[in-house]
């Protein structure tokens, strides 16, 4: 007889096995390993929650400790490979196959292990892509998630760092999988219900908060004059030109400089209310002066940021918050917002080639993508018009197609011609290609493809790739802002001059900007302490950013 509820029956069996270790749904921290041995089967698809911010650290450690005769050959399908334990489980044979999206701090080790055959790689995804696959062909059998607190029924409070949790739980729990949450504590009543109890099967009391990385804090003290110059160019040459109100910023120092120039330089240009009012963005501390000066109307966040909790709570007109008053973040929704409801992405990168393809990998590191490719891509499914989107579309395709012309998302790469350790930003060939050859990948890990990039901004000026009509013009436009890098020094001087006449290349002086005016006194805050003052004492920076 055909059975149509095999998965449900299997879940019941696993719940029963796990239930023997639990008191109701509650499991003590020292029993976490036994719980995992009871509910995880060899070859399972397992999602350990973790991204570039929060981590289910206790459950990761417990998984590393399991008896490998009971739990082995797992297929890990997690967005972030961040903790050492995430890779140690491959060394021990607990896990075999990996599909992921981001691997920041483990990027060098993951490359070594991939090359050594210790990990069978499925693919490197963007966040949104991996979330999508959770619902199609990579649905978790077991999800190990992180929350702040739970009640005895299993209702979860995630606090400001909700992030990936609702997405992971949705895919797992509604497809007969098992959801295990680690929480700091069990309380009588949670401050708000982020995950309803009937989607949560076990709750492990960790006794301490989950690990969170303050990845989005940039110390204004480290912003250079060149970064200020590129920020001025971007504000006058792109924000003002297109009237960009809805946008996403990357995490680099150049965009932090832009945030700190809004209440000063941009205000003097009369742009307040006309640009940078609605964001898909984490609560960047560098945005505090702009928020306090009335620039920003609304922000939806992927995750939270350490130290910004009280500030966000006190500025609920700006941020999304729950009944308890604290931030409600949601990575999947914010990624969708960045893709479809923002007219511009602006961010930094490590390497740009002659056609504008960019990448953050080097030959020895597999850093993954995170969310940038979703932000930094034209949304081909977009159908609502806006002024910046229509103008970019017109620049890209000046032929009169009437009402059939598409708009374009502005995708801006900003950076200095030379980066850390004098590494050139512009290269003939991306390291990503050598890496893909070495690891025999089907695709080179390109962060933003050249045909999605609309502008490149350096201290040398702006290259508007929308106005380029062929590959040669693109190449010379890019060489034209590549400064003294080898790529820049091999420019065709005559063609670069023509491109400048056409406005494809815009120099600082063409915008009336004197490089000598790019001074740190323009920054609304020049230190972390200044940001604390701007916030009225509500921002509480993590200790590594305090020098007082």
């Amino acid at each position, binding site marked *: 007889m055909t059975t149509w509820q095999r998965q449900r029956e299997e879940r019941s069996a696993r719940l029963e096995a796990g239930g023997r270790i639990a008191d109701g749904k509650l499991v003590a921290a020292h029993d976490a390993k036994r719980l995992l041995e009871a509910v995880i089967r060899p070859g399972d698809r397992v999602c350990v929650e973790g991204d570039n911010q929060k981590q289910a650290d206790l459950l990761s450690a417990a998984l590393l400790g399991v008896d490998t005769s009971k739990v082995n050959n797992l297929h890990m399908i997690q967005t972030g490979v961040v903790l050492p334990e995430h890779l140690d489980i491959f060394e021990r044979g607990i896990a075999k196959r990996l599909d992921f999206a981001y691997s920041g701090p483990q990027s060098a080790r993951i490359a070594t292990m991939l090359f050594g055959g210790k990990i069978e790689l499925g693919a490197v995804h963007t966040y949104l892509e991996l979330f999508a696959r959770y619902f199609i062909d990579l649905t978790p059998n077991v999800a190990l998630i992180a929350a702040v607190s739970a009640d005895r029924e299993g209702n979860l409070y995630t606090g400001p760092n909700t992030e990936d949790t609702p997405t992971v739980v949705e895919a797992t729990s509604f497809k007969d999988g098992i959801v295990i949450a680690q929480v700091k504590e069990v309380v009588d009543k949670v401050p708000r219900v982020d995950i309803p109890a009937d989607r949560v099967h076990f709750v492990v009391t960790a006794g301490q908060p989950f690990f969170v990385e303050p990845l989005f804090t940039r110390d204004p003290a480290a912003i250079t004059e*060149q970064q200020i110059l590129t920020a001025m160019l971007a504000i006058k040459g792109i924000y003002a030109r297109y009237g960009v109100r809805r946008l996403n910023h990357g995490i680099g120092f150049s965009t932090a400089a832009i945030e700190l120039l809004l209440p000063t330089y941009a205000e003097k240009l009369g742009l307040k209310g006309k640009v940078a009012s609605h964001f898909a963005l984490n609560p960047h501390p560098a945005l505090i002066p702009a928020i306090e000066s009335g620039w920003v109307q609304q922000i939806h966040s992927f995750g939270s940021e350490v130290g910004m909790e009280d500030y966000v709570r006190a500025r609920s007109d700006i941020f999304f918050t729950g009944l308890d008053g604290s931030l409600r973040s949601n990575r999947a929704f914010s990624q969708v917002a960045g893709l479809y409801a923002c007219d511009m992405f602006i961010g930094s990168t490590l390497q740009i080639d002659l056609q504008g393809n960019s990448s953050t990998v080097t030959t020895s590191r597999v850093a993954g993508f995170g969310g940038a490719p979703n932000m930094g891509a034209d949304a081909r499914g977009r159908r609502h018009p806006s002024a910046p989107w229509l103008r970019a579309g017109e620049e890209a395709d000046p032929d009169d197609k009437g009402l059939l012309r598409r708009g374009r998302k502005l995708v801006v790469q900003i950076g*200095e011609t030379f980066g850390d350790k004098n590494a050139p930003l512009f290269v003939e060939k991306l390291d990503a290609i050598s890496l893909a050859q070495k690891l025999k990948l089907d695709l080179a890990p390109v962060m933003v493809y050249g045909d999605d990039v609309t502008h490149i901004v350096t201290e040398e000026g702006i290259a508007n790739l929308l106005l380029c009509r062929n590959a040669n013009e693109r190449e010379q436009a890019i060489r034209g802002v590549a*400064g*003294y890098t080898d790529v820049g020094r091999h420019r065709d001087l005559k063609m670069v001059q023509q491109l400048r006449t056409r406005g494809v290349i815009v120099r600082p002086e063409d915008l009336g900007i004197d490089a*000598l005016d790019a001074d740190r006194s323009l920054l609304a805050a020049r230190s972390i302490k200044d940001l604390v003052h701007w916030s009225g004492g509500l921002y509480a920076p993590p200790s590594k950013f305090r020098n007082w």
Partner: protein
Amino acid sequence: MEDLNFRHRTRARAAGIRTQAIVGVVASGNLEVLAERVLPDTECSVEIRTQAVGFGEVWSAVIADFVERYSPGGLRLSINDGGARPDTVSLRLAQAVRSMEAST
């Protein structure tokens, strides 16, 4: 350490009457530029002492662009370089010329 010297003809005299100025600091990734008004109005010299060896070609390009753009006639510019990036060098040189424009 490497020493590099460049001498250029200039279109015009550097503006201002100030005879000497110092901008920048000697630090990793930064540089110090001493500007002195000691040469004929149609000449400019740049003397570089740098911690980064083997970048003569880039220095040559940076200095040539600087002279073309600012015409620093009459100035001897002495650079003490801590391995600064070319864009930082350009900025400091421009700052040095602007400092010399001051009236006192």
